[in-house]
């Protein structure tokens, strides 16, 4: 018996360049992989096989595209932020994922995976959620396709995002409070994985970002690619330069950023991923393995994972998707951080100048643009594409307390 056969796992794939398919064994450079308990190895292989089949099947692609059009409202617009641009001295364009059905980019991925789950004959979706947007998106996709949904959410996040908890339950999902550890996204993810170990026969784990064991980082990026591809075409029509000078997105696990970057990877556009100062896996993490993948994680001197801490529950994750760690190493993207205060300022500013209330997560990207325009890091007249990953309705009670 040849080892290669036993471990057959895209061994023949060389990796198709930057932001292509991952290399053999699910690698993006030295990151990625499939560090799962043996009990999940077969389940990951099945998801991989099913996704490859589906993604190569025009029938599946067509069905997903139609659902994204008639249910989600795609394509989302590209909005020139005229007044704010005038104030900042740069030309800022917003890719409006906040206008999707359910209010964030998470629905692109949740619907893709829900459709895949039906193709695999699964009857239930499992998800983790931080801000609740992925939970809401999963609950929505499940309702639409007649699946059950079980969503794991840290107790602390359930308090911070109680409206989304109510929304998920209204949509028919079961929301399970997670009381271990920091009671946020990291612990919800651990609990979802534990739960999946016991339910692989009938449940699909619908991971919410470009994290987790192979094939998830790749698959989720492919489902989010629609953001970047639409924006690419819209920029070509709208911008004098055709391609923006800078492409900016917030990074929790990194799915809205990865989907956006993927549309511009073959252009000279500079990529900037903006992390929360308290959850900066790409900017401040070191090599590690958690939740099935090898990447950069916030850790203490003993190798224990540090709890992230951000005003935006969706960015409260101590690691970053493996492809971002790789893009950072390559120098293809850079990762910066902004503070909670800058984020609150940016949120209010967008609301007042453009009439758009962004999610606190998305406001991270904006906060960096505001800072960089002020410091000259973004030269006057630069064109900037910013993915506005979600709308701020879920954050109104937090904002009410803090502003």
């Amino acid at each position, binding site marked *: 018996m040849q080892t290669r056969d036993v471990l057959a796992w895209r061994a023949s794939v060389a990796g198709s360049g930057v932001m292509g398919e991952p290399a053999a064994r699910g690698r993006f450079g030295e990151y990625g992989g499939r560090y799962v*308990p043996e*009990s999940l190895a077969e389940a990951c292989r099945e998801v991989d096989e099913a996704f490859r089949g589906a993604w190569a099947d025009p029938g599946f692609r067509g069905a997903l595209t139609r659902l994204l059009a008639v249910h989600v409202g795609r394509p989302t617009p590209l909005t020139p932020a005229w007044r704010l641009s005038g104030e900042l001295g740069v030309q800022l364009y917003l890719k409006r994922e906040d206008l999707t059905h359910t209010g964030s980019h998470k629905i692109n991925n949740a619907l893709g995976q829900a459709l895949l789950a039906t193709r695999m004959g699964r009857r239930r979706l499992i998800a983790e959620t931080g801000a609740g947007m992925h939970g809401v998106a999963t609950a929505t996709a499940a309702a639409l396709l007649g699946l059950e949904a079980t969503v794991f959410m840290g107790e602390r996040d359930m308090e911070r995002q109680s409206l989304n908890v109510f929304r998920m339950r209204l949509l028919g999902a079961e929301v399970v409070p997670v009381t271990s550890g920091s009671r946020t996204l990291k612990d919800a993810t651990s609990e979802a994985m534990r739960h999946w*170990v016991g339910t692989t026969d009938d449940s699909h784990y619908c991971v919410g970002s470009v994290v987790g064991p192979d094939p998830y980082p790749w698959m989720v990026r492919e489902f989010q690619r629609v953001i970047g591809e639409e924006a690419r075409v819209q920029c070509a029509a709208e911008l004098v330069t055709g391609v923006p000078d800078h492409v900016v997105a917030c990074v929790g696990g990194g799915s809205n950023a990865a989907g956006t970057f993927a549309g511009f990877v073959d252009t000279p556009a500079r990529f900037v991923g903006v992390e929360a100062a308290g959850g900066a896996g790409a900017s401040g993490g070191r090599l590690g393995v958690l939740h099935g993948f090898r990447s950069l994680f916030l850790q203490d001197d003993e190798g224990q994972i540090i709890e992230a801490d951000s005003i935006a529950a969706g960015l409260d994750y101590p690691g970053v998707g493996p492809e971002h760690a790789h893009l950072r190493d390559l120098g293809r993207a850079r990762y910066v951080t902004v503070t909670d205060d800058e984020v609150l300022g940016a949120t209010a500013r967008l609301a007042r100048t453009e009439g758009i209330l962004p999610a606190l997560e998305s406001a991270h990207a904006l906060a960096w643009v505001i800072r960089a325009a002020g410091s000259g890091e973004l030269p006057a007249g630069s064109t900037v594409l910013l993915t506005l990953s979600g709308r701020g309705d879920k954050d109104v009670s937090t904002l009410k307390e803090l502003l």
Partner: protein
Amino acid sequence: MTNSLSNAALDQGSVERQLRARRDGGRRLLMPYVTGGITPDWTAYLRAFAAAGADAIEVGLPFSDPTLDGATIQEATDAALARGATTRQILADLAELPDLGIPLVASTYYNLVLHDGPEAFCAALRRAGVAGLIVPDLPLHEADELTGVAAAAGIELALLASPTTPEPRLAEIGRRSRGFVYAVSIMGTTGERADLAASATELTRRIKLGTDRPVLLGFGISTPEQAREAGRHADGVVVGAAVMRRVLDGAGPDDLRAFLATLRRALDQE
């Protein structure tokens, strides 16, 4: 693949030699687990385990995110970390322990192995007198980067097999595992359960078709009856959550010694 990998006898380390010798002498093996650093004088539990007739001891190095552990071992892990337990201190405690006459097997998540690098980690285990290692989130297909390093340091890396592991992969696990094969009895996390899962019997049978390394069955074995039943199919059992629940409830080394003695008797009766 090298020839030595297929010739099990040539590369048996001390864990495997000891377990095999006992098994071949007709003994069913008992490997209790303790979370390292759970109490200030936690190594007293190890002495109690040895006195109760353990054949090996699994020492958990607590990790902040134990994704394959159920509520009991999560709680034990949190308690140990809250007391300030670190890998370094746990290994220092073990180094001071007199030889118990049975092998010590460390278990932890891969992040802690990677932290100072696999070489440094394995060397530190060795210095502390640990001879075996279990890394539940390092499955067969990712084990390459640790197997060679561990072997070079004299650490036997035991691989886990699960009820859903398909056939050719299972045989490969049997071939590449060192010390013993850790059979995960059910599709679930660690934790006590009312019955021994049917999947346990079937998995042990399948593993044994491909290897004659000792097969230890773990996850959910908590009573003498379950141990006896498990001993009919596997070469022995791993008992973790049932031990740690007692420790968390305040049981001291003598209580654990009495509890493990009941499991020992059950295994010996078979």
